[in-house]
């Protein structure tokens, strides 16, 4: 579990993270979403104690990360920036980290196999492709068999097979009851991996929600109908709370009725339908809407406070 409360980081007069609060609970994949420069990486660095917060706290399983006796067993992290000496082999890199905690060599070999690095384990990391470097970073994050896994842009540089591997891996880790948090600036990536979403912009929390809630939001955009008798269908469907708009010669968009009801009405009156489909906005659009709303709520709050 990761609990972030009022976390703030200022560099001079620039505020990178501004009073951020959120929770990443166990057993779920929490997506940390926001555009580049939103403060995601800085937040993650503060969670693992690399940067000291200007204000607020970040707790990992109830304690600041640095106060744990075996930090790598509490939280495994993949940071966005390179964190490996290019002259060392993948095996030696992982061994060096393993030694600090008394993690056995067997476990190092296990994560090497898990990350698909077996064939290159004894090559210098400097010769690795971006994708292999990413796999090594993920292997390092899993080394201590941690209760929390936190990955910054894990699919960066991975090929499609690698992307699928990361997705399945993370879902599997969450299914085992671990806390999984991953950051991305791509909504589409999050939709396929995360259950929960923490959306940030300019260092502030814009929304803490679930992917399901977002999907629900995006579902209600009306039903697309194509028929040979649009005018007749239009009058048949008319009623309180129903709006029908024309979207071409034979096309209508109906809101306030679901596909089932429209189909029944059409069958009853023998109106032929060529198409009947629930329209949905893309998650990306819903996400934009959501963040817009969040920004508006925030400014209203600010107005009330003033």
């Amino acid at each position: 579990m990761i609990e972030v409360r009022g976390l703030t980081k200022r560099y001079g007069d620039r505020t990178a993270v501004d009073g951020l609060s959120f929770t990443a609970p166990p057993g779920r994949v929490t997506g940390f979403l926001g555009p580049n420069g939103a403060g995601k990486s800085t937040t993650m660095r503060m969670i693992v104690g690399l940067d000291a917060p200007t204000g607020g706290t970040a707790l990992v399983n109830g304690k600041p990360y640095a106060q744990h006796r075996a930090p790598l067993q509490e939280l495994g992290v993949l940071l966005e920036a390179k964190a490996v000496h290019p002259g060392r082999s993948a095996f030696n890199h992982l061994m060096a980290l393993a030694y600090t905690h008394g993690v056995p060599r067997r476990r190092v070999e296990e994560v090497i196999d898990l990350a698909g690095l077996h064939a290159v384990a004894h090559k210098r990391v400097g010769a690795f492709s971006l994708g292999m470097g990413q796999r090594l970073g993920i292997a390092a994050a899993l080394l201590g068999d941690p209760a929390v896994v936190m990955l910054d842009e894990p699919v960066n540089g991975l090929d499609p097979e690698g992307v699928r591997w990361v997705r399945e891996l993370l879902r599997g880790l969450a299914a085992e009851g671990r806390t999984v948090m991953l950051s991305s600036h791509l909504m589409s990536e999050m939709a396929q991996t995360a259950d929960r979403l923490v959306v940030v912009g300019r260092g502030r929390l814009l929304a803490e929600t679930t992917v399901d809630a977002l999907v629900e939001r995006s579902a209600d955009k009306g039903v697309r109908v194509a028929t040979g008798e649009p005018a007749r269908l239009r009058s048949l469907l008319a009623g309180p709370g129903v709006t029908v708009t024309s979207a071409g010669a034979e096309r209508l968009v109906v809101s306030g009725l679901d596909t089932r009801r429209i189909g029944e009405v059409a069958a009853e009156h023998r109106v032929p339908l060529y198409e009947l489909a629930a329209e949905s906005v893309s998650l990306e659009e819903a996400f934009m809407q959501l963040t817009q709303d969040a920004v508006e709520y925030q400014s209203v709050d600010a107005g009330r406070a003033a």
Partner: protein
Amino acid sequence: MSASTSTATPPVYRVTGRRVVRSEWSKFWSLRSSWITLGVAVLFLVAIGSVAAALYTPDGPLGGKDADSGAALTLALAGTNLAALAVGALGVLMSAGEYGTGMVRSTFAAVPSRLPVLWAKCAVYGPIAFAAAALGALVSFLIGSAALHGEPIALSLGDAGVFRCLLGAGLYLGLVGVYGVTVGLLVRSTAGGIAILAGVVLVLPGLTGLLPSSLGDTVSRYLPSNAGQSVMTLHASGDSLVGPGAGFAALLVWAVLLLAGAAYRLRRSDV
């Protein structure tokens, strides 16, 4: 494929000082640059020392009637300054190098209390640098002894003070290694760290001439390079050097100051 270990009960891991030392030891030896730089340091000691001894003639600057009885050691240890540069540079690489590659983020994510890493780096590298330098000094002296056989200045390993000087050379370079590690952590830049170290070892002693002479002499004697000379010189002559005990104490004081500075920066600054 599961990410968990096959064991039924979760293993109990824990960070300890000894384990951090083990980790730093493995980090040191798993880089080719460590082997090369350490080899270069030993090579400087042995090659320069034995060449100096081989080129010795009684009419040369160190010969003559009033030749210093410690001249054989002076010749054998002629490569110390250059070796100090190599040893110090390797110390800087061990610490500042991690900032350059980003390895430092992995290091401090594993040991977020940070200070154990500083102690471990010094505890690993100080003794390694000491052992390599003492060995290099010994080999250089033995080769030199063979070359100087029969000369009036010839010394043997059993002569009074010889062993202390060779050991002193090892201790001096071991501490220069520690200086390198700490300077690297203070400036976090490999190039900057090596430049500072080279300046302190090679250039600074010459600059004390700019100070008023009494003050300049006092300061000069306690600079790392001159204090280092005192621990490996058989007979400190004139005012330029303090005795070996005082010299060693000065070297330790420098180490403590640098360690304190590095520890402070490590605790206070973001990685």
